[in-house]
């Protein structure tokens, strides 16, 4: 029997507010334990929550960006359960009426383009952290994270493969970063994902029993964990078993999923509207403000790059996959006097490979858009060849000549030799030095001319203009 998988994702995006969702404490990451937890975050007797308006507007920003309904009135509810890092014994979240309803994202995979519907996005507070190490049989509680604003974005079960799930997640990741509502840092937990997975025989329309996967906090883990879970479910069903609705954790070391302890499962959260918080109102004026500040969205930018910069869809998609890369591109193109395609090739090729090799982001690239743009200009005006340009790029990366492209080319003597006398001399030397090959060319084996070009380039340390060399050789040997 052939199976298809059905996947829905729940993403928790930490909103980049200065202070927490219901208190004035800072949300900065990495402070010493419990130094960023005020009376409200600790849940002391008598304290009350006050809504951070900035978080509400960020949620509205997201809603507008995915074409959703930003509800004019939404309700905060209490989700009641006991856990040591949940200070009040309840989490303030949204239940029946979330801030954002509906919306969708367009994804592209090898299988083509597809619309993934978003069910809802709601505001809630994060819990603290339980620290199980370093306390010798006890558990430490750090409440710095307690009360950090989260936007939980829930997709419909529209995803049909791990590849689609990753594409959706990457799309969402790019979007929230472009909107500047989430820093997207997955290592620090600013962008977290849980997946609901089920399988069914292809053609079946009802949903199978689902499992929930947790702890899949990198794009790679999402893909691995989903593959394993789908395989596991298929083999369970094929051997006559039934899928049990449960929460499973992905173990990246063992590369498999295992069930969480069953005890944690049977929760009745006793949701009810939080009497401490009035309904959250987002009116037309708020929306007008948010709309006016909405940046160009990744899809629109991609389309503009294709139209304005005459890039291929693939190049444009790669560049707009991260708003910082797209920003870099636009800046570099300006410095390259509008030479967009070559700039795109250099960014998607050389620059990306250097960034990956050094494991740094584009914002930290030692080669700035201005440097790259300048280098592109020197390729365009034939001061350096493409090949030599890579040497220049490497030197720029190392910080030589303070990033002054022209000074660097000058001091390293990398200027392309366009002086025909000098090239002619080298060509004559090579013809004299490789008589057999010269003879072959004369006899009509034109392919061998490439060898001779290579020898001339070698003799000139690559600085000769290869096109000029080619022409000169042909002239000498064939005319």
């Amino acid at each position: 029997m052939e199976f298809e998988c059905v996947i829905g994702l729940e993403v928790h995006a930490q909103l980049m507010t200065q202070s927490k969702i219901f208190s004035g404490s800072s949300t900065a990451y990495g402070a010493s334990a419990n130094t960023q937890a005020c009376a409200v975050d600790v849940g002391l007797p008598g304290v009350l929550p006050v809504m951070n308006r900035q978080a509400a507007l960020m949620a509205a920003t997201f809603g507008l960006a995915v074409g959703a309904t930003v509800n004019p009135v939404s309700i905060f509810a209490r989700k009641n359960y006991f856990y040591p890092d949940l200070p009040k014994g309840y989490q303030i979240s949204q239940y029946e009426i979330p801030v954002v309803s509906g919306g969708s994202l367009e994804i592209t995979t090898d299988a083509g383009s597809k619309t993934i519907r978003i069910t809802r996005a709601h505001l809630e507070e994060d819990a603290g952290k339980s620290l199980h190490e370093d306390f010798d049989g006890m558990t430490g509680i750090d409440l710095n994270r307690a009360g950090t604003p989260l936007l939980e974005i829930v997709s419909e079960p529209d995803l049909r493969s791990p590849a689609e799930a990753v594409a959706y997640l990457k799309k969402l990741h790019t979007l929230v970063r472009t909107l500047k509502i989430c820093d997207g840092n997955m290592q620090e937990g600013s962008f977290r994902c849980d997946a609901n997975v089920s399988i069914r025989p292809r053609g079946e329309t009802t949903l199978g029993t689902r499992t929930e996967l947790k702890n899949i906090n990198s794009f790679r883990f999402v893909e691995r964990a989903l593959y394993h879970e789908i395989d596991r479910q298929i083999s369970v069903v094929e051997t006559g078993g039934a899928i049990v609705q449960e929460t499973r954790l992905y173990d990246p070391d063992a590369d498999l999923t295992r069930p969480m302890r069953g005890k944690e499962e049977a929760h009745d959260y006793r949701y009810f509207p939080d009497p401490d918080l009035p309904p959250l109102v987002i009116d037309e004026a708020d929306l007008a403000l948010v709309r006016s500040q909405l940046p160009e969205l990744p899809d629109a930018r991609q389309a503009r790059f294709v139209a304005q910069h005459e890039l291929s869809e693939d190049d444009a998609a790669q560049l707009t996959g991260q708003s910082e890369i797209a920003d870099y591109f636009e800046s570099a193109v300006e410095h390259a006097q509008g030479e967009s395609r070559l700039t795109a090739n250099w960014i998607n090729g050389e620059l990306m490979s250097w960034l990956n090799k050094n494991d740094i982001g584009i914002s930290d690239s030692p080669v700035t858009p201005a440097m790259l743009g300048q280098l592109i200009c020197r390729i365009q005006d034939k001061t350096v060849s493409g090949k030599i340009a890579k040497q220049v790029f490497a030197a720029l990366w190392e910080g030589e000549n303070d990033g002054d492209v022209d000074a660097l080319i000058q001091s390293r003597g990398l200027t392309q030799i366009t002086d025909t006398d000098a090239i002619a001399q080298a060509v004559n030397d090579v013809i004299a030095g490789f008589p057999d090959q010269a003879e072959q060319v004369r006899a009509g084996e034109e392919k061998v001319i490439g060898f001779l070009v290579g020898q001339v380039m070698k003799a000139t340390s690559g600085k000769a203009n290869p096109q000029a060399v080619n022409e000169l050789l042909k002239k000498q040997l064939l005319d």
Partner: protein
Amino acid sequence: MLHEHTLTALRDMLRRREISSTELTQHCLDRIAKHSDLNAFVTLDESGAMAAAAVADKQLASGEADLLTGVPIAHKDIFCTRGVLTTCGSKMLENFVSPYDATVVERFHQAGSVTIGKTNMDEFAMGSSNETSFFGSVKNPWDPDRVPGGSSGGSAAAVAACLVAGATGTDTGGSIRQPAAFCGLTGLKPSYGRVSRYGMIAFASSLDQGGPITRNAEDAALMLQCMAGFDPRDSTSINAPAPDMATLLGAQVRGLKLGLPKEFFDTSVDAEVLEKVRESLAVLERLGATLVDVSLPNSPAGIPCYYVIAPAEASSNLSRFDGVRFGHRSEHAEELVDLYENSRAEGFGEEVKRRILIGTYALSAGYYDAYYLKAQKIRRVIAQDFETAFEQCDVIVGPTSPTTAFPLGAKTQNPVAMYLNDIFTNTVNLAGLPGLSVPCGFDTAGLPVGLQLIGKFMDEASLLSTAHQLQQETDWHQRMPAEY
């Protein structure tokens, strides 16, 4: 005698420097010690009070007196006070010292008053007799074998026995008005949102409201002026400035229409209570008020509605008392679940546990619609009843409680009988309206009877003015229990 003066009178005597705050504060402390058998206080802050009195005396000497400079007051032990125990009447918080002040406490500090101590109360404000306190029952100064009412019983007993001229209370279903009635005092529950709840340990968040317990309406107005006003730390706080005393007391009784709901004057009410209530209404009529018959047809649903909503909210509000960060932590815990269960089993008393159970049940999957949601609908209907009645009158009047103070222990074995004490008060909380209890006579046993005045939303002025003018014509509020 010094302690027999009202809060306003003491304030003025301090300003005229006829007495010093140090002298007055010491006098209060001496009286509290002398009458410790009342058990009105959980914690006294002698050194803090005397230090604050000394500061106040300096201010008074330099003519920089604020609204309440040098006046001793007491806070119900539900208000968080920095550096002083805040127990909420519970073993759970027996050793809890808050690192911050409640907004109400802060406002009294800013007004220059001297906090003398923290008054006893029903555990987590759950009770109508002050008998659920972990720190023992409070005695009614009018008859030490009787309850002072609750949950603000310690505050009421302290003011009635003239240990202090004014005290704060909180009222979720009648917890200011009923003890005020039982102790012959004036007690005001302001409109919901009038007084900040920040730092007031939550029982039922949508019903809780702080207010004053005093000897007369003038004092209540003075304390309200100090307590009220918008607080950005409480999202349910009403954005309206605190009204001043003159406004609160200046409304005219002449021409005021007083509505008598027939449901408040039925045979379930003690005959003597009804008689005293009617006598005081006759006084108000002589002052120019007119009496009109109104109806609050859904008020019988008030008790069941209240006893779903209040416990539901409480079950969630009290979840933070888990033995992890503060409060009682069981020493008998091997596993996490034991820590929760044992800390809460040991730290909470019987009534608190009962209400947590009721509330948890009412919010449970499968029961939520039948209980919590239904109760919310009834709550809206009850609020609508009041709105309809207020189309015919300005103030609604009736008894505060169906009886006068009952003997200690009389109702502790019968929770439902205890809950029925709040039959005339808790609908006011459900509707978010202001309510006031004012002394209106004594029964043949010599126990005080309270008249309840219920106002339109944010119209505390009509209640305080009416009570104030009644007190110009009567002296029930001036009587004092013989022993004190």
